[in-house]
């Protein structure tokens, strides 16, 4: 480690526009040191005057890559060298104005560009070449210039507005009056007219286009109407009959109409099933056409169940049995692709979730998913993420449906603060109140009500989102947001706790500007170390032998000024600081403990006293653990009361096993250290199956790489009873506290330690070969993983900052990790909460039939679909590539109808208090059943009322192909945790049933995505 500790370099940036004037806008600046781990990101800097950036590494180590990204110009990148003294002046003239011309495209129902639209078709537009991440008004105008509809939409960071529907069915309702028209009336009114579309930014039109409506209409139309032919796309259950109208159908005189569950993107060959009505009959009607038109009642009001439906029209030829096959044919006519045919809504108050008493609290913030369930609500976003907002139609009361709404993003306020001041001030960075996203709510599917609220969110903080229904109107032209949060009309995501948070990247985030550092060498001490150590050899009593160890360590601490070298110079900002203690692994290099300086400095700047202690060559588990306590005592004498009894232990390699042992010793010997987090980095597991559990349990994190050249993790050589011994086995055995494990594809053993470097790649004993080398991730990525994951974990558990928890549930990856090594990093998280409702963990006595009874005591059944019975056993017994030390289930399927169902016992049926259904899963290495690439399946929940929804696992988590190693015995069937949020089963999604989480009947894996597969699963549970 050769980091220049004197961060006195200064850079002044003068940014000019094409006219040579100072650039009058905000810019994002990124400075990445070319060698050292130093990344500076300045977001939204004011370029109307020179910008000064301080505390940089100066020459001779002052090489940085500079990137300046203004809103109006192309980014500018260059390399710079920070002078050893004084200020380095850099002037950049931006001359290459963005040259892309705004473009507006009319999008047809099939997703293709269109030049005109007919009555009844959805009017959808997309645009590109716009100002990036800026609010634009998208206006639909009548031929006379009158405003028909308007939405305020944010462009994304590329300046694109994705396809956005302005008018679900052109002409069939009057946007100005909400009056419904028959098709004939609509055709008469709109034929031959030419609508205008404008995209405006800051009241100036930046793109415009027209929507010609032809004089004559030719495209077939199928829609839900009332008996008079007026469009009716939705109504409350029991309120109206289901009536279908068809026009311009190129069919002979008779046809059959099927009412089917809504599906997006109908494709030829898709199977469909007529809806079974409450009366017990199928929703099918044979109709006679008159001039290509018909109107038919498919269901009485009392017959239709709540749900979303489409309609399929088919010509049935007399005597042709095949015409009754329920597979979509090229000649079949289906309703619109992007607009649901009909939504029969639940009785509103029966299904509405009311969370906030008088305040209408609803989740709004989240991430967009491509494909059902389209949206994932979440409340933590790392800086730079896109924040989306969605109004779940199931959460909209009837008074909100079809109404204009404005979504404000405001700084979080408590309930009391809202009571004191209910005014809404949309963030200035988003353009203030003039730039609030506005749209008309739609029913049927959350996909219609989601909008990008904050692209590239960079301002860390806590925020609320308020859905302001203003003057409560359905017409865009008359909509007036009132800039107030009015209860109970308006809805809020926030109020009690923040609606969402923008959190910093833990890789770069610091809370102290300076770190002091020193080393100490306080003479020798004697500790007992393992002698007879290996339980697999059957030694009755592991024995200990004394070993003499020098007490050396490197220490970093938070400081108020640069250059601090004494414990007494610790920052005065706090009275005490938690401890982060590092225990390295085995090496003959006596400077091994100095290989984590990058990590210690980062921890110090995060408010920790951070120390890396020296261990003697060939020390084993117990001796390393005892040294932990020797050094804590020494640090207490140096820092006194500044050292809090709030300790995180991090061990690497043999040290990773030793820190678990240390936690056990601390508890067994009642040493009284408050060990609040334990981290094992690429750990061994060879000194007696130590297990972090019971009274010694502490939050536990394991980080381990697929390309570890030392602890490579094959089946143990010569051991009578595998499993292999790596971080997986330590993780599997740990219990009693929250735990997570990050399995990093391409990560090695030594690259986390700057002294060790590539030892496990180049040494003669290395278990890596040249074919593996292209799969390795670089040193920078390793260090960012260590910094990001370890500081976030310790901040969560030692400082009580819950906003990092999502990282360890696999919900998000620190952006700097995601971008490291040119985006090469792939990592997979296992996690376990302590408060789960376990369905099956596949433990206990394994027999040929034990898989048929779950841990919860209910049945497990494949309904005879699987080609062979699943096998419940210790996973290493059924798969030599399994690194796990746990029972699990191995199963194989060979058909898309295959399934496995876990019954939910009566006492556990109410899962509404949990957040996710969760399980661990892996592809079985080298199974010919697994196709190349990711594996996929559905996780289905069904309630006791037979309402069921299946969610494709890949929408939330990838089941990756095992990361192959040249020495294939080290390729691992490594499970990862899949967490599917339970709201994915309840939010309104077209064509999907809503599941009652208070009455879950069973959890089912449906293997309908890939035709074949072989997987291992474990830990099926409902969890937080």
């Amino acid at each position, binding site marked *: 480690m050769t980091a220049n500790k004197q961060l006195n370099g200064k850079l002044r940036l003068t940014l000019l526009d094409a006219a040579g004037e100072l650039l009058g806008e905000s810019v994002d600046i990124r400075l990445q040191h070319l060698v050292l781990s130093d990344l500076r990101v300045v977001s939204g800097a004011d370029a109307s005057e020179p910008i000064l950036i301080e505390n940089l590494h100066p020459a001779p180590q002052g090489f940085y890559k500079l990137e300046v990204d203004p809103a109006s110009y192309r980014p500018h990148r260059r390399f710079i060298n920070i002078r050893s003294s004084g200020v380095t002046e850099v002037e950049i003239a931006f001359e290459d104005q963005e040259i892309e011309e705004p473009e507006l495209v009319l999008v047809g129902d099939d997703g293709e560009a269109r030049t005109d639209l007919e009555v009844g078709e959805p009017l959808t537009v997309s645009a590109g070449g716009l100002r990036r991440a800026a609010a634009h008004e998208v206006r639909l105008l009548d031929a006379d210039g009158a405003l028909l509809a308007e939405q305020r939409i944010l462009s994304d960071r590329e300046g694109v507005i994705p396809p956005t529907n302005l008018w679900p069915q052109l002409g069939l309702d009057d946007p100005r009056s909400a009056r419904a028209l028959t098709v004939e009336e609509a055709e008469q009114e709109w034929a031959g007219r030419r609508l205008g579309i404008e995209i405006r930014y800051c009241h100036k039109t930046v793109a415009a286009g027209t929507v010609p409506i032809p004089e004559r209409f030719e495209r077939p139309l199928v829609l839900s109407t009332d008996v008079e032919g007026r469009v009716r796309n939705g109504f409350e259950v029991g309120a109206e009959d289901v009536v279908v109208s068809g026009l311009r159908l190129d069919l002979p005189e008779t046809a059959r109409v099927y009412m089917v569950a809504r599906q997006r993107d109908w494709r030829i060959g898709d199977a469909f099933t007529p809806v079974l009505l409450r009366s017990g009959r199928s929703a099918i009607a044979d109709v006679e056409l008159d001039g290509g038109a018909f109107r038919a009642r498919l269901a009485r009001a009392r017959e239709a169940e709540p749900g979303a439906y489409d309609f399929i029209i088919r010509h049935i030829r007399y005597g042709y049995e095949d015409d009754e096959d329920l597979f979509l044919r090229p000649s079949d006519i289906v309703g619109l692709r992007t607009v649901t045919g009909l939504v029969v809504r639940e009785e509103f108050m029966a299904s509405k979730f009311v969370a906030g008493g008088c305040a209408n609290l609803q989740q709004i913030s989240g991430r967009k998913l491509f494909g059902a369930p389209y949206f994932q609500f979440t409340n933590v976003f790392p800086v730079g993420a896109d924040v989306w907002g969605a109004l779940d139609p199931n959460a909209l009361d009837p008074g909100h449906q079809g109404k204009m709404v404005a979504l404000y993003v405001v700084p979080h306020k408590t309930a009391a603060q809202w009571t004191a001041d209910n005014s809404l001030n949309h963030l200035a960075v988003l353009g203030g109140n003039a730039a609030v996203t506005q749209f008309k709510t739609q029913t049927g599917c959350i996909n219609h009500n989601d909008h990008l609220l904050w692209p590239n969110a960079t301002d860390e903080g806590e925020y609320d989102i308020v859905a302001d229904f203003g003057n409560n109107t359905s017409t865009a032209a008359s909509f007036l947001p009132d800039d107030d949060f009015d209860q109970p009309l308006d809805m809020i995501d926030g109020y009690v706790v923040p609606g969402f948070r923008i959190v910093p990247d833990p890789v770069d985030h610091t809370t102290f500007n300076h770190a002091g550092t020193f080393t100490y060498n306080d003479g020798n001490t004697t500790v007992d170390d393992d*002698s007879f150590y290996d339980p697999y050899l059957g030694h009755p009593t592991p024995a200990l032998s004394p070993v003499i160890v020098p007490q050396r360590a490197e220490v970093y601490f938070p400081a108020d000024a640069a250059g601090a070298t004494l414990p007494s110079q610790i920052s005065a900002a706090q009275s005490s600081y938690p401890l982060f203690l590092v225990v390295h692994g085995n090496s003959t290099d006596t400077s091994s403990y100095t290989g984590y300086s990058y990590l210690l400095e980062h921890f110090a700047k995060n408010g920790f006293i951070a120390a890396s202690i020296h261990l003697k060559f060939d020390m084993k588990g117990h001796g390393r653990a005892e040294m932990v306590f020797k050094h804590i005592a020494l640090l207490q004498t140096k820092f006194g009361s500044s050292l809090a009894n709030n300790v995180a232990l991090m061990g690497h390699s043999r040290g990773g096993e030793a820190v678990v042992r240390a936690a056990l010793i601390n508890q067994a010997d009642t040493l009284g250290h408050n060990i609040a987090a334990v981290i094992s980095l690429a750990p061994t597991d060879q000194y007696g199956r130590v297990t972090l559990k019971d009274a010694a349990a502490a939050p536990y994190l394991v980080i381990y790489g697929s390309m570890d050249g030392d602890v490579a993790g094959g089946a143990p*050589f010569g051991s009578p009873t595998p499993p292999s011994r790596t971080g997986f086995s330590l993780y599997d055995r740990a219990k009693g506290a929250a735990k997570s494990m990050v399995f990093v594809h391409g990560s090695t053993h030594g690259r986390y330690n700057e002294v060790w470097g590539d030892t496990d790649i180049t040494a003669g*004993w290395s278990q890596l070969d040249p074919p593996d080398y292209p799969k390795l991730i670089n040193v920078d990525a390793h260090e960012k993983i260590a910094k990001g994951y370890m500081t976030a974990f310790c901040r969560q558990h030692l400082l009580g900052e819950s906003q990092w928890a999502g990282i360890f549930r696999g919900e998000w990856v620190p952006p700097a990790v995601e971008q490291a090594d040119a985006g090469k990093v792939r990592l997979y998280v296992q996690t376990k909460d302590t408060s789960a409702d376990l369905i099956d963990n596949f433990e206990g006595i394994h027999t040929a039939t034990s898989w048929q009874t779950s841990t919860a005591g209910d049945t497990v059944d494949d309904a005879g679909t699987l080609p062979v019975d699943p096998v419940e056993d210790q996973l290493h017994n059924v798969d030599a590539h399994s690194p796990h030390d746990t029972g699990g289930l191995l199963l194989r399927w060979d058909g898309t109808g295959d399934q496995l169902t876990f019954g939910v016992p009566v006492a556990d049926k109410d899962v509404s208090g949990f957040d996710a259904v969760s399980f661990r899963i892996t592809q079985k290495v080298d199974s010919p059943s697994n196709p190349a690439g990711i594996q996929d399946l559905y996780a289905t929940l069904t309630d006791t009322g037979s309402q069921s929804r299946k969610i494709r696992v890949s929408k939330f988590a990838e089941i990756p192909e095992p990361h192959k190693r040249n020495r294939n015995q080290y390729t691992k069937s490594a499970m990862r945790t899949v967490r599917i949020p339970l709201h994915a089963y309840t939010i309104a999604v077209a064509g999907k049933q809503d599941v009652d989480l208070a009455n879950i009947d069973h959890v089912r894996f449906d293997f309908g995505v890939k035709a074949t597969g072989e997987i291992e699963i474990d830990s099926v549970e409902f969890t937080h």
Partner: protein
Amino acid sequence: MNVETFPYLSDLAERMSWSCREVLRDVADVPHLLYRVQLTGPHFEARALEPIVRVGRVRADFVELSADGLTAGAYFDRPLPERGAVTFGYEDGVLYRFPQEFEIEHLERLDRERLPENVRFP
């Protein structure tokens, strides 16, 4: 890795040797008579994984590497075979197979008369 199959390691093969003697060690304050098989020749490198030495089918109870990597001392708390191959490796495989087979008659024994009374034998 079996050096006999790698011609370029033939020099190493010539340098690889073992010796075997009885030694005393206190384990849990009880003197134990152990068999120590001392290996020289290769460079024995430190790894995270514990080194493993076998004589025939018998695995050493623990192995100590010298800090300079020049010797590996394998300690056996169990009877050694009359004859057997000597191998050095780690949990993940054999790294060296010594060309000279182990023979029990080369074991240097301690004088039983001079051993402590409470010594524990393999």
